[in-house]
C-alpha cells in the first residue's frame, strides 16, 4: 500500500509512551468515529499514532465526503452548544424571580457573557436548520430505503428532540418574547391529540410558573441533550454498519479520491468557516433583549417558534372546515407517517425512489412553507 515510510515500521513494544502503556488511547480516540467526527474506523489494538496514520491514509470516495459533513457540522454544533451552555449554567438561576436578572447579569456583567450567550442562541438556530436540511436532503434523494430505516428514523427524531431542546431553552431567560413564544407553542402542542396530553402530563400542567421553569431547565440541560447524544450515536453506528450510500447514478462508480488525511483537512476548514460565520452573526446581529415576562400582559406579536407556525396555522386558520380534533389527528398522522416513511415506501433500492412519494413530499414542503407564512400573519393579525 502507499503508506508513508515512517508508518510502515512496526514500533517496538517499549516505544509506546508512558500513558499509552496504561490507557488505550486509541480506544478513546475511536470515540471520534463513534460520533461521526472521523469517517473511518480505528484499529483499537494498535497504538494511537499507528492507528490514526493508517486510518488517515485510507482512500475516501468523493461522494463519501459530502453527505457526512452535515452530520459532522451538526455534531460540532452540538458540542459547541454544550460548552457554551455549561458556561451559561454557571450563572443562570432557574426560578421565575431570579431567571431574568441572572440572564441580564450574564449578558451585562460577566466577561464575555454576552458573546457566549449570543453564540449559544445563534448556534441553536443553525443547529435546527442543519438537522432540518439534513432530513429534507435524505428525503429528496431517497436515503431511507432498505437497510437505512434506523438512520432515517433517528434523523427525524433528532430533529424533533432538537426542537424540544430549542423550545425549552426559549423559556429560560424568562423574557416577554420567550415566555409568550412558549405559551403559543404549548397551545399548539396541547391541541394535538395523544401528544398533547402526554406532554402536559410530563411537564406537569398547562400553566407556566416557576416549577415548570425548573422542569424546562432540567430537560434543556440534561434530558434532551442526553437523548440527542444517544440518537447521534445510533445514527452514526447505523451508518457505520450499513455503509455510506451509493451514488444516485448506479452506473457511476464511486471515484476513489484522495486520502482521508486530505478530506479531513477540508472538514476542519469547513468547521472553522462555520464557527467564523457563527461568531460574526453573534457579534454583528445580536439577538436583542426583551423586557421581563409579565404573565398578565401579552405582547402584541407573540409568535409560536418557526417550526410550529405551520401546525398553528393548520389548527387556527379556516375555522369550521374540519373540527380541531380532526386537524390535530391529521398533524399527528403526518408526523407518524414521516417517521415511519421507510415502511410506507417499500420501493427497492436506495437511489431514485418512488416518484409519487417524492412529488408528495415536495408538495408537502411547499404547503408547509406557505402555512408557516400564514402562521406568522395569523399571529400578527391577532
Amino acid at each position: 500500500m502507499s503508506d508513508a515510510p515512517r508508518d510502515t515500521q512496526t514500533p517496538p513494544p517499549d516505544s509506546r509512551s508512558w500513558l499509552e502503556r496504561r490507557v488505550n488511547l486509541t480506544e478513546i480516540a475511536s470515540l471520534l468515529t463513534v460520533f461521526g467526527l472521523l469517517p473511518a474506523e480505528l484499529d483499537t489494538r494498535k497504538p494511537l499514532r499507528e492507528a490514526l496514520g493508517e486510518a488517515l491514509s485510507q482512500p475516501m470516495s468523493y461522494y463519501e465526503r459530502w453527505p457526512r459533513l452535515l452530520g459532522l457540522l451538526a455534531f460540532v454544533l452540538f458540542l459547541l452548544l454544550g460548552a457554551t451552555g455549561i458556561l451559561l449554567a454557571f450563572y443562570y438561576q432557574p426560578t421565575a424571580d431570579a431567571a431574568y436578572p441572572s440572564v441580564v447579569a450574564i449578558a451585562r456583567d460577566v466577561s464575555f457573557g454576552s458573546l457566549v450567550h449570543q453564540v449559544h442562541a445563534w448556534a441553536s438556530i443553525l443547529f435546527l436548520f442543519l438537522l432540518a436540511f439534513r432530513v429534507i436532503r435524505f428525503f429528496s434523494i431517497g436515503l431511507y430505503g432498505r437497510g437505512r430505516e434506523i438512520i432515517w428514523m433517528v434523523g427525524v427524531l433528532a430533529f424533533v428532540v432538537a426542537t424540544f431542546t430549542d423550545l425549552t431553552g426559549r423559556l429560560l431567560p424568562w423574557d416577554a418574547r420567550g415566555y409568550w413564544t412558549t405559551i403559543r407553542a404549548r397551545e399548539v402542542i396541547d391541541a394535538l391529540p395523544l401528544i398533547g396530553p402526554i406532554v402536559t402530563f410530563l411537564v406537569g400542567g398547562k400553566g407556566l410558573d416557576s416549577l415548570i421553569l425548573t422542569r424546562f431547565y432540567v430537560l434543556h440541560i440534561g434530558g434532551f441533550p442526553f437523548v440527542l447524544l444517544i440518537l447521534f450515536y445510533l445514527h452514526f453506528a447505523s451508518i457505520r454498519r450499513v455503509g455510506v450510500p451509493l451514488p444516485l447514478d448506479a452506473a457511476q462508480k464511486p471515484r476513489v479520491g484522495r486520502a482521508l488525511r486530505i478530506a479531513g483537512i477540508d472538514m476542519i476548514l469547513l468547521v472553522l468557516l462555520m464557527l467564523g460565520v457563527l461568531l460574526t452573526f453573534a457579534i454583528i446581529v445580536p439577538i436583542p433583549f426583551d423586557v421581563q415576562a409579565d404573565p398578565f400582559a401579552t405582547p402584541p406579536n407573540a409568535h409560536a417558534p418557526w417550526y410550529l407556525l405551520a401546525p398553528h396555522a393548520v389548527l387556527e386558520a379556516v375555522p369550521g372546515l374540519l373540527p380541531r380534533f380532526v386537524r390535530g389527528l391529521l398533524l399527528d398522522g403526518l408526523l407518524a407517517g414521516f417517521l415511519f416513511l421507510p415502511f410506507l415506501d417499500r420501493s427497492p433500492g436506495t437511489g431514485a425512489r418512488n416518484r409519487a412519494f417524492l412529488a408528495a413530499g415536495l408538495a408537502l414542503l411547499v404547503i408547509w412553507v406557505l402555512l408557516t407564512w400564514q402562521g406568522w400573519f395569523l399571529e400578527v393579525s391577532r
Partner: protein
Amino acid sequence: MTAWRTMGRSAFATAIVAALAWTHGAHAQDSTKTAPAPDAPAPAAPSPAATSATPVAEKVVLPPPSPLHERASHPLAAVPTDSKPTKTTRMCGVCHSDIRVKFDKGIHKSEEIGCISCHGGNPDAITIAEAHRGSGYRGRPRRADIPALCGSCHSDVARMRPYQLPSDQFALYRTSAHGLALARGTMNAAVCTDCHGVHEIRPADDPLSMVARHNVPTTCGRCHGGNGDPARPATPGSPLADYKAGIHGHALLVGNNNAAPECANCHGSHATAQPGARDVDKVCGQCHGKVRSFFMSSPHRGAVRRGGHSDCAVCHGNHKTTRIAATAFEKTCDSCHKPGTPEGAVAGRIQTMLADASAQIDRARERVSRAEKIPLYVEDYQARLEDARTALMEAAPATHTVDTTAVEPHTRRARSIAAEVSREVDEKLKGRWWRYVGLGLFWFYLILTAAILLRWRRRAIARSTSVR
C-alpha cells in the same frame, strides 16, 4: 309545565303564609308597637316645597331607570314565587315581592327601617284593603314630598350621629339648583330617589351604589346626558359624553383612579349648582392648588375678576377637560392672542421651551432603551431621565403664569439633564467598537489557520501523488 308548578307552589306558599299570619295575628300586632312605624313622619314632616308646589297631576318626564338596578317582575304569577314576609318588610313583601327583593339589597333593611316608615299602612294586614289603610297610609309619595320625607330622618342630628352621617343634606338641597327648581314647581327636578335609588338605597361606599364615585357620572347622566334626548332635557350639550372623553372621566372610569373628580366634586352633591364664571379657578384649584397659585400671579387673573373669559375652562374645557400638549401651546393661546401680538410672541417662546425639552427627553429615552436592549447598565440614566421628566412636569404649572422667566428654569433643567444623558449613552454605545476589532482579529487568525491547513493539504497531495 314549569309555570304550572311554580304557580302551584306559590299558591301553596301563600296559603301557608296566610294561615300563619292568621294564627299569629295577635302577636304580630303587638310587635307593631315596638316597630319604628309610629314615628312615621308624614303629617309632621316639614314640607315647604310640597305646600308651595302647584297641585299638578304628576305627569312629569322622568329619567330612564338606572342600569345598575335590574327589574324583577313576574308577569306569569299574580303572587310572585319568592313572596314571603320578612322581619323588615313584614306582610308587604308578600305582594310587593319585586320591591322587597330590591329593598333587601339596600342599607335601610339592615337598619330595620321598614316599608311603613315611608309609605305608612298596616304591615301585618292580610288583605289588600286593610294593608293599604292603617296608620298614615301614604302609598306612593308625591315627588314634591320626597325631600322632606327623607329629611324627616336624615335631618335629625341625634338620629344621624351614631352613623357619623351629615344631617344638613335637606337644608343644602333646598339651596341647590335641583331644590330651587322643585320649589318653582318643576316636577322633574331631581329629588333624593333619583340619585340614591328608590328602594335599593345603598350607602355611597358600596360599589353598586348609584352614588359610588365611578357610578356618579352615569347617575347624573340620566338627566344631564343631553344631546337632544327629550327624556333628558336638563342640560344643553352632552356633558356626560364630554366628561367621559375628557381626562378626568378617562382617569376615573378607565384608569380606575379614585382621586379623579366626578360630577359632584365640581358641582357639589346636595347643594349642586353650576359654578359661576368667576369661581371656576377656585373649583379647579381644590385639586390643582399649585397651578392655581401660578395662575393667580398671571394677568389672566385680573381678567377673570373683571368678568372676562379667561378662566381655566377657556383653555382646558369644562366637562371635556384636556391636557394641553407642549406642541399645542401656541395654538391654544392663538384663539385669543394672535401670533403677531406681544402676547402671541410669549406663547410662542413658551411653546419652544416646552417642545425643546420634551424632544430632548424623547431623544435621551430612545438612546437609553437602545442601550437597555444590549443590555448595558441604564439604571443610573433612567433615574436621571426621571429627574428631567420631573423638571418638565414642574414647568407645566409654571406656564400658567404666562411668564417666560418662571418657565425657563424648569425647561432648561429638563433639557440639560436629558442632553447630558444622551451624550453619555452615545459615548457608551460608540465605545463598543472593540467588539468589531475582536471579530476582525478572530477572522485574521481563522484565515491564518486556513492558510496553514491549505499548505499542509497541498503538501499532502504532492506527497501522495509522488509516492503513487
